């Protein structure tokens, strides 16, 4: 355990130690005025001696300590080590703790969950980023601490690479079922359209695309391409109203449903706010791009010309078609894969697979070792300063009381 300073220049404040010293010296220099009529028999050669004498040593010491503690506080002291080298047992939520090997007394038993809560605390329910937590644990623990990990045969939270840790880890696969991620059901993908009157011409193509999505959802086995021709009948047939077509001043849909904004000019403020809070907006080519940067091209035609660009806006996205929605400007409208392309534009990317087999995902040794994270001592020092200050006030006022 050793003390380190994050800002050693703060120790320059130790110069303030001179202040209490001066305060306690200053009284020494002033002379006690005394009436003395027999002055003429007093020899003038004896000047008062300038002795380095301090008054009220206890109070002086307290004040010196207080100033020193404040200076140390400014230097931001941190503590290295001192956490002990007790072994750690981390358990993946869902793994069977009963299968843990015999570990020495004083072993830290924690859940492999954010913050590493002790095993006595309730089982963390949310799925955890297992690999990331393993790396965090490896980086935070002192290098000598042995770590035992209990995992289930399969678990979620893996990422692209096997974790490479600085220490060898006792990796034990035990019984138990990992917490299942709450799989989001593949809900209906619907579209809301807000259009200006002059944009009516584009509506059939979008209706057709939505109808095609519906057809795929109802008959997954059917050939998508066969239904790709605009089949507006689907709209009337659907009970859940998969398409919501209205004028520009109609209410905005809920944010899970993409919005096609078919109007020229600036986006109105409510629409922008809607998109910022998590909505996905599809803009017609006449609309003004709401962002300063141009956005990334996400769809190109066969000739490589950009057809759509997209950008993140707040928590949502904006996608803009670069061509007018008519077959003359955009032949892709008539292509059989237009519904699929449109859906790909509007749908968020599916999550990456995170499930891994524990046997295959055992951490590898030889990872980078990190310098130990020091502990901040400032809160304790603050308490010390407060206590010293209270004591100093008490002693100072007590002395004065006695004098009075």
């Amino acid at each position, binding site marked *: 355990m050793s003390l380190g300073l994050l800002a050693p220049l703060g120790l320059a404040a130790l110069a303030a130690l001179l202040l209490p010293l001066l305060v306690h010296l200053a009284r020494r220099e002033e002379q*006690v005025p005394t009436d003395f*009529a*027999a002055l003429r028999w007093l020899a003038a050669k004896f000047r008062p001696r300038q002795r380095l004498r301090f008054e009220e040593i206890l109070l002086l010491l307290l004040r010196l300590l207080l100033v020193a503690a404040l200076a140390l506080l400014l230097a931001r002291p941190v503590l290295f080590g001192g956490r002990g080298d007790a072994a750690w047992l981390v358990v993946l939520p869902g793994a069977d703790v009963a299968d843990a090997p015999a570990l020495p007394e004083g072993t830290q038993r924690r859940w492999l969950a954010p913050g590493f809560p002790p095993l006595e605390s309730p089982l963390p329910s949310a799925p955890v980023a297992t690999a990331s937590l393993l790396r965090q644990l490896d980086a935070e623990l002192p290098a000598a601490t042995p770590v035992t990990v209990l995992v289930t045969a399969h678990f979620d939270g893996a990422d692209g690479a096997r974790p490479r840790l600085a220490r060898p880890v006792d990796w034990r696969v035990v019984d138990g079922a990992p917490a299942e991620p709450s799989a989001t059901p593949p809900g209906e993908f619907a579209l809301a359209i807000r259009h200006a009157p002059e944009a009516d011409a584009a509506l059939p193509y979008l209706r057709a695309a939505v109808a095609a999505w519906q057809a795929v959802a109802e008959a997954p086995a059917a050939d998508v391409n066969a239904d790709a021709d605009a089949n507006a009948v689907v709209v009337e047939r659907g009970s859940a109203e998969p398409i919501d077509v209205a004028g520009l001043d109609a209410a905005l849909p809920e944010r899970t449903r993409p919005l096609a904004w078919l109007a020229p000019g600036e986006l109105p403020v409510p629409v922008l706010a809607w998109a910022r809070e998590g909505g996905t907006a599809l803009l017609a080519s006449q609309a003004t791009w709401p962002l300063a940067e141009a956005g990334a091209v996400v769809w190109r035609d066969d000739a490589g010309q950009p057809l759509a660009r997209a950008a993140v806006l707040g928590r949502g996205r904006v996608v803009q078609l670069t061509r007018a929605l008519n077959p003359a400007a955009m032949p892709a409208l008539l292509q059989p894969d237009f519904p699929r392309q449109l859906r790909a534009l509007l749908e968020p990317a599916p999550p990456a697979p995170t499930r891994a087999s524990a046997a295959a995902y055992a951490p590898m040794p030889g990872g980078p070792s990190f310098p130990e994270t020091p502990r901040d001592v400032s809160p304790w020092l603050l308490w010390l300063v407060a206590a010293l200050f209270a004591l100093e006030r008490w002693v100072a006022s007590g002395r004065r009381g006695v004098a009075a």
Partner: protein
Amino acid sequence: MSGPDFIPADVRARLKALRLHGRRAAGGHGFGQHASRSRGAGLEFAQYRAYEQGDEPRQVDWKLYARSDRFFVRESERDSPLTAWVVVDATASMAQGDAARPRWSRLDAARALAACVFELALRQGDRFGLAVIGGDGLRLVPAGSGLRQRDRCLLELQGVRAHGQWPEESKLRPLWERIGAGHLAVLVSDDFDEAAVTLAERLSAARREVLNVQVLTAEERDFPFRGGRRFRDAESGAEMLSDAPSARAGFIAAFAQARRELAVRLAASGVQRTEYFLDEALDQPLRRLFAPQAADRA
């Protein structure tokens, strides 16, 4: 200060043993208790002298006439009254006292000593008066006798505040008009003013009987100060920084030497002098000045 008449009870009790007496008591002003050099009617036989025209026949010693056939007049020593003056120094230096006893300054001691003298004089039926010399000049209570005279003097003392310096010579002229030849004058002062000492000398030279009580503080005797001090003279305003422990021995020696020289000088001019330190009993200096001497007791 204790009570309206300044005299503590124990001191008052001890005053009974004391008696004011003057070495030069002058006759001629009625009968009193003090031995005088003047001859005349009285109790103690002094001498016979030849009859002179104008002598009262009842003063002739007829038995002697029967033996000697000549007229002799019997004379005795006349007991005369005394006039006692208390001259109080009220310059600023008299306000000084000891740190150990903050409310007892030189002036307080001088008031009490003066009150004691008045008490003695009152008891003996003598005349007494008060002169206060301070920053205001001279303040006089003309000599008189009796209880009301004592109260007048005490009232005057009550109002005295120590401040200022010793006044000029000319302002003290009324003093010479009031304190007659042969009067007893008790000068209560710290004797730090050269003018005060000169006044005592000149009064003594002019046939006044002068007693001097030099009122000194215990600090001036012991110099008990510690550490650095800023000594300040209230009269001149002079200040001196000094380290008390180092200056102590030198001061005590120099001050004792000065007091010895003063004693020699005053004794040479016939002034009876005693010292009173503020931590002594109040009747000590009076005892030294007025204690019945062997010759008187006989």
